[in-house]
């Protein structure tokens, strides 16, 4: 099995967001960057599938600046065989990213191309299925359970109040959700080995965007709340407030 994983470098989810000087992006000072948590499910799935198949290759792709090399190395430390950095500066909309990824992976002969269901920074929820569409491949998103057999997959995805079961032939594109697996932690040996694994840096020219970021701001603060009281005796007053003030009862 030859499997690609698309990986994004994002701020750690414990990050407190500070708006940058341009008013359109975040202030990156002091922020710890990590591989997108949902992409780690994709990395784990690729590694597990290759181990199960007993042969194959896993390749991680990331689009970004030089700092994304560190993110790629994390995936290599987990066990991915090699990395490709599609090097570019600045940000891009989902379709532009999908186009760059599709161009890079076209003709590489991947059986599976895996994404996280979304990146926890942009929350775009779109690059995986867009890439699939551009490559003309079947795609199942937000996969929580996967079986691969005889050149086809059966995938389960969570929908409101149920689980949707899909099948398709390989090659295919999948986006991975929490619940699919438990990503392994890099071990010291893996971290050492990752330093020697191939990491190609390929500069890419991005296509014109059709989403223009005008601004980024912090959400309006919630109006000051109040402590209704202490212990169960405060419940009647809470009920009164929910009924008469908040009008949600």
């Amino acid at each position, binding site marked *: 099995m030859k499997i690609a994983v698309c990986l994004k470098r994002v701020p750690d989810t414990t990050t407190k967001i500070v708006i940058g000087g341009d008013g359109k992006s975040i202030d990156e000072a002091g922020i710890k960057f990590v591989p997108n948590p949902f992409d780690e499910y994709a990395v784990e799935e690729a590694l597990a599938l290759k181990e199960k198949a007993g042969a194959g290759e896993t390749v991680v792709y990331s689009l970004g600046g030089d700092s994304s090399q560190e993110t790629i190395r994390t995936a290599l430390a987990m066990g991915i065989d090699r990395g490709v950095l599609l090097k570019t500066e600045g940000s891009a909309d989902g379709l532009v990213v999908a186009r760059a990824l599709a161009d890079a992976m076209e003709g590489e002969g991947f059986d599976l191309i895996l994404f996280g269901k979304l990146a926890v920074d942009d929350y775009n*929820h779109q690059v995986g299925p867009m890439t699939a569409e551009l490559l003309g491949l079947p795609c199942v998103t937000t996969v929580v359970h996967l079986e691969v057999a005889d050149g086809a997959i059966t995938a389960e995805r969570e929908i409101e109040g149920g689980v949707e079961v899909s*099948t398709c032939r390989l090659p295919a594109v999948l986006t991975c959700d929490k619940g699919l697996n438990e990503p392994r932690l890099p071990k010291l040996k893996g971290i050492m080995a990752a330093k020697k694994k191939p990491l190609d840096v390929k500069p890419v020219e991005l296509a014109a965007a059709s989403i223009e970021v005008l601004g980024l701001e912090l959400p309006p603060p919630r109006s000051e709340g109040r402590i209704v009281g202490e212990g169960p005796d405060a419940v009647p007053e*809470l009920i009164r407030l929910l009924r008469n003030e908040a009008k949600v009862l």
Partner: protein
Amino acid sequence: MAAILAVMEQRDGALRKVSYETVTAARLLADTMGATVDALVVGAGAVTGVEQLAIYGADRVLTADHASFGLYQPDGYAATVVAAAEGCAAIVFGATATGKDLAPRVAAKLGVGYASEITGCTVDGDHLVATRPVYAGKALQKIRLTGSPAVLSVRPNTVPLAESPKAGAVESVAVPEFEARVTVTEIKAPADAALDVAEATVVVSGGRGLKEPEHFKLIEDLAAAFGDAAVGASRAVVDAGWRDHSAQVGQTGKTVSPDLYVAIGISGAIQHLAGMRTAKTIVAINKDADAPIFKVADYGIVGDLFEVVPRLTEEIKKVKAEG
């Protein structure tokens, strides 16, 4: 006059509530832009609830009927939406599991960008300007959609249903040929088909303060007392295996905007607050008066949840019984 295509969602042959929100959102935009609203219903055979689309502002109801459209058919739905969107100024989806899967496929086919899970939209000259939460709601991004048509999905529960009666004439549209690369074979529903936290109007969430997974019964009982509430959970208890990940609220779970969010035994880690801060009313019950959750809560009760929650459940039951 340009049209806005509102893509409807059905399950088991009935329109889902989010469809009326989508039509309402499209109507609001159409009124600003001087456009009409086409509501596209993709299904197999008759879909109930279609007659109500006119009430929320559909000028036309387009039905695309295909034997394989009973369950979601991503490739067929995408091809049908693209065909129906010919000449449209914008395509509006509900940001549901289906909408979030379908919209990017449509955008890629059309070669335009896509604004997902927007919570607001204005018209600026020839373009739409959308507001959308990023970093799970820790920040709001304002973006201009310069592609044509504009493709967007609207977060559930952010557009209050509003009546704006229009003709809603029903017309059937042809389903274009498509290659079914993916086949949905079934929907497995849990026995107690649970409400989804992302769509429920009331969410009752539990955290580590419950101490033991069995104590989630308290949360379930309170949710049941409300009648229409979903049960949510903090990341800590999902990671501990107490609850399924589908219930997780927060940056690596779901972002929710219910009318009422009740946080019980949840301290309020930054990634959790990000996921629920757009709830209209927030109630927090926690024994630690300094817990960060009280900073975002409209109403807080400091106390032992094992005493407070059963009392609250009783009182809610009384209120509901009074109707």
